[in-house]
């Protein structure tokens, strides 16, 4: 993760510190210089990639997809940063299910069905058509393992699965990474910082004597 306040290094300085062009060229790939250049230019204002407009789910049907969208947004909603729906966590969930072993995918679909069944029982409608208050009430039941009554056991299990997938899908998304985690995706660092707090036993930051001039 890029630490806020990390000094910005010019491309030339970066290449110099990496030893490129100083200690001969890298033995393996010439592409390193190009990569460093790309980083220097692209970072930090990278353009987020545009999601495909014509996407259709592969493992979920349309209703299941809507349910996943609703559940994921309830788990990580839009606040001062975008929520799970905006970063398309549902597409990630669909990809995972498409790749999953059949038994796992089946269990997940059973869980989606369970949510609808319980919603109908409690509110008389499928989960996506329940009010936000009703949806929250249902998730409150299944999100507390303490409430593990026999009737809700499958729901508790399913909630664990959809919550874990939402967490992964959200925080690994481009928006989640940049806006929520404040990670600009930088992969080139000219140096590595360490602990600078004497109270932890670290070294105080080195202060260069002001008089020391660069020799040229």
């Amino acid at each position: 993760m890029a630490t806020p306040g990390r000094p910005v290094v010019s491309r030339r300085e970066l290449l110099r510190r990496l030893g490129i062009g100083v200690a001969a060229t890298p033995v393996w790939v010439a592409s390193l210089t190009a990569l460093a250049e790309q980083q220097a230019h692209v970072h930090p204002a990278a353009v987020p990639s545009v999601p495909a407009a014509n996407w259709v789910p592969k493992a979920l049907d349309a209703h299941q997809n809507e349910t996943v969208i609703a559940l994921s947004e309830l788990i990580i909603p839009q606040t001062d940063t975008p929520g799970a729906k905006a970063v398309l966590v549902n597409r990630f969930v669909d990809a995972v299910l498409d790749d999953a072993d059949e038994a796992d995918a089946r269990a997940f679909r059973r869980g989606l069905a369970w949510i609808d069944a319980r919603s109908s029982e409690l509110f008389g409608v499928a989960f996506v058509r329940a009010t936000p208050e009703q949806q929250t009430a249902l998730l409150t039941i299944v999100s507390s393992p303490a409430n593990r009554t026999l009737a809700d056991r499958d729901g508790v299990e399913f909630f664990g699965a959809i919550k874990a997938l939402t967490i992964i899908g959200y925080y690994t998304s481009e928006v989640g990474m940049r806006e929520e985690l404040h990670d600009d995706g930088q992969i080139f660092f000219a140096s590595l910082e360490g602990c600078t707090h004497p109270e932890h036993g670290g070294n105080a930051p080195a202060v260069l004597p002001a008089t020391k001039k660069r020799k040229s």
Partner: protein
Amino acid sequence: MANEVFDVVIVGSGASGGWAAKQLTESGLKVAVLEAGRRLDPSTDFTEHKLAHDMPLRGSEHPPKAWRDEQPIQKLCYQCDEYAHELFVKDTEHPYTTAAGKPFQWIRGRHVGGKSIMWARQSYRLSDLDLKAASRDGWGVDWPITYAELAPYYDRVENFVGISGQAENLPQLPDSRFLPPMELTCGERMLQRTIKERFPGRLLTIGRTAVLTKALNGRPACHYCGPCGRGCSAGSYYSSPASTLPAADATGKLSLITNAVVSHVVLDDAGRCRSVAYVDRMTRAPREAFGKVVVLCASTLETTRILLNSSSSRAPNGLSNSSGVVGKYLMDHIMGSGAKGTLPVLKGIPDPRAHRPNGVYVPRFRNVTDPHPAFLRGYGYQGSAEVSKWAHAFAMPGFGASFKNAVRQRPWTIHLSGFGESLARVENRCEIDKDGRDAWGIPVLRFDMAFGDNEKKMIKDMADNAEEMLKAAGVQDIEREEDMAPPGLAIHEVGTARMGDDPKNSAVNRWQQSHDVRNLFLMDGSVYPSSACQNPTLTIMALASRACDYLVEQLRTGAV
């Protein structure tokens, strides 16, 4: 090239084969390297610069389904994930068998560079405490060489490969020729200070790693992108294709023959190695490479398999096996035990570690001075302290805005995990399974291995002491981990063709030359007489360097 006779034919182009190729070609010898796999292309095969959202499954810890089904064993390795799984073999093509109820998890990579592409780069010297352990505690056999004999070769390897670390002047863990050390994080500093003040005889130091903190020999310094195990396009950590193989190539004396799946070594009428027989990986055509000397660097277990598959009327038990030790005394490090927790006192302090491709190390402190009452030998801890990015969210209750907000409080986490010595035992072994064939028709190995009582006691001690040290450092929410991974998974397998002075109980001499066949050398971890607890690769390369010096001299004087 049809019947060209090379001075030396090396089998394997990984960490050890790369080193042997460099040193032997630089000595003026004409060398062929036979490598079962293909050349990797960093621009398409390496994924270290990919971010999670570049991957369809966001960097899942397992391979995608099509590969997952072909990699039931490989996928158990932490590095065989969505990004890097193609660097690991398909188990379906490279099968092996195990004794009932005794799992062995054999992790492999078959391409130019071998496991030096995916390795975790931790690099520690052995000392006489390790090499002469048998003399101290009576278990097993000593190494036939001393630390003083090996030290100049460590120097040589380190000066070329580049090992970053901090000198500590410990007798049990000699210092390398270090490049500048990487920095410790706040949590690691706290633990370091606690250990120093409260645990006499112990210390915490930055990991010693084959990653360049300064440009070296034309290779650029690390740029701290982080996930090295997926390959390094910059060549900033030691892998043979980034350093030793190009050096060998530059001599003009190297023929690197890829897709050459070696089945066995062929002897001439006088009982000397004549050639190495291999199968073309793509066409399956049988081929032969002729050499005055054969050097096996196929990695411990593949080298052992080649020896055992090279049995003949002259060597019915397998090549270089008149002693009967080949395949026996299989060792791997024990792991799976330690402790972890959080450091609430560091709340809010940012993690300066960023993408440091390295952890910390607590060197062995058991049986260094005083004998431990419960077990022989010792272990070291690898670990780290860092700020959790978001994985802590899994354990947090609830959902919704309050949940999302709570995840923003990112805890400092810290862990210590032990890596311990396993004892050489004759019954821990591999042999040829006559009923099994790999995709190229070559007979496969069958493993019969289990850790014993000494290892079990050590595992408990690892968890106890990790817990105690973390507790002393103020770590909260401590979770003990007291598991023992099945053998193989530490990927530090060694010992199945051990070296020694006595031809009756060792396969090769102190120069790693076969006792039985003078123009055959083994230069990988197969020659280890005992496993020590340090990660093996640096020592494997130093040993290879020493053996290469001897081999060159033998060829010069016409002795082989």
